[in-house]
């Protein structure tokens, strides 16, 4: 087996609670991402997905365990570029300048950064929209600008935190199809955090299923079908079987809570 790009080993994270206690949020989570892989982490709402996300983005340190990146870093930069659920586009910048902001902050000349963005606009289906302001775009377009802003930073790992969570069903599906192709064709290494079961199954090589808080890994699902998968994949026995399995697992904790 090749060396993985990113390994998370027995990571736990707890926060200080009231009266000197600690609240465990993540408990003994291990996961792995190889180069070019698409991995999803799926869990119920409030299960500590966001905390895991901040750990992967190197914004917080785990209480115990390690997050190790085995690839090459550029200087002291984080190994990952992340895309939050909110697009966080700056309303005073055009699409091009919003997308280029990561490059500009890395010290790329503004002109060169804009040129780079212009080349990528068609891939992100934003052709001719470079000089538009964010308020002039639809929700799906805004998410694509946010994704472009993330991808163009050219960091080894992409972290996506429920990127399509705020979109309507059709726009979301359309973006999932497009993202599948984008990631497969460009060999992007991606960790996707989501609570959308079909999204995780459709896009990923591997799905990690989290429990309720404190989050533990309850199941790891390997999906060997080649990516990108087409819409046909939604009809396969494997997909429907896995979908059922995951929904069952994800609702299990709620049922346990009710008993």
């Amino acid at each position: 087996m090749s060396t993985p790009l990113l390994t998370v080993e027995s990571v736990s994270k707890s926060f200080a609670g009231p009266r000197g206690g600690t609240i465990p949020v993540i408990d003994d989570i291990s996961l792995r991402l190889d180069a070019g892989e698409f991995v999803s982490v799926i869990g119920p709402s409030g299960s500590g997905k966001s905390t895991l996300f901040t750990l992967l983005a190197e914004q917080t340190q785990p209480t115990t365990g390690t997050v190790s990146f085995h690839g090459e870093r550029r200087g002291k930069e984080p190994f990952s570029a992340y895309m939050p659920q909110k697009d966080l586009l700056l309303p005073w910048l055009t699409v091009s300048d919003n997308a280029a902001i990561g490059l500009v902050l890395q010290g790329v000349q503004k002109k060169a950064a804009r040129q780079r963005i212009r080349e990528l606009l068609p891939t992100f289906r934003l052709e001719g929209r470079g000089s538009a302001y964010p308020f002039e775009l639809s929700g799906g377009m805004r998410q694509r600008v946010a994704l472009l802003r993330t991808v163009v930073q050219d960091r080894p790992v992409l972290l996506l935190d429920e990127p399509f969570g705020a979109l309507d069903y059709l726009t979301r599906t359309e973006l999932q199809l497009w993202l599948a192709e984008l990631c497969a064709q460009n060999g992007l290494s991606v960790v996707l955090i989501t609570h959308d079961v079909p999204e995780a199954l459709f896009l990923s090589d591997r799905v990690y299923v989290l429990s309720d808080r404190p989050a533990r890994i309850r199941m790891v699902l390997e999906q060997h079908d080649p990516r990108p998968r087409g819409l046909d994949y939604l009809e396969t026995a494997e997909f429907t079987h896995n979908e059922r399995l995951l929904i069952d697992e994800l609702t299990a904790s709620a049922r346990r809570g009710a008993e």
Partner: protein
Amino acid sequence: MTTIEAPREVAAPPPIRRPRRPVAAQILLPAAALILLLLIWQLAATLGGMPASVLPSPLRVATAGWADRANIGEATGATLQITLLGLLTAVVSAILVASVLSFAAPLRMTFLPILIGAQSVPIIVLAPLFVIWFGFDAGPKIALVAIVSLLPLTISTLQGLQAADPDAAVLLRSMGASRWQVFLRLRVFTALPHFITGLRIMTSFIVVSAIFSEYVGAKLGLGIYMQAQKNLFRTDLVFAAVFVSIAIGLSLFALTYLLEFLLMPWERRRKAAQR
């Protein structure tokens, strides 16, 4: 990176069309109301039989004011100078103070409540003290005008700087931005509308402050002029000076819109799209 043949783009929803309010009506209606008001005043003054020293008619105010335009112009120049220099001082110091406080949380926690509390101190009553402390030059008057307007402008600017989305700040930091870059690229732009609102509120009382600052020892200015004319029972000229100060206030108010237009081109486009 390869290009992907994508299914056809779903177009952005067309901007919502609101019923268009004609600009002409926005100007004509208030103007008509104003003319009506002046007409009623004119009629009341001429038919009411009140002496001109109590209620001069608008026409008389206009003709008397025009006749004394040399003196009014001179007084206006002096007041305008105090107003503009005070305004400039206030803007520069408010931006400086707000910027420093936005970087230093302990300082902010110490001084923001004091700033907010100090707003209710009627600083204008300090005018006589300023004369005692700093004398009769233009300096103390400018300082007084600046201090009166400094507080609300600092507070609104600071609140604007702090209103930046913390998630956006974290995102920029993750892309390698320094705190200073977050300030320049995020906070300053978030603060702009707050700053302009602060400025707009300021224009409503800055002329009054300048006039009041003259009441304590100035040789020239609209405040001095009004006092002198009042003592001569030239109510028409008092009114003329009042109208000039109103005009200054309104011009400053209009200038804030020009500033907004120049500083925030994206807002211009957003408003145009909504129209």
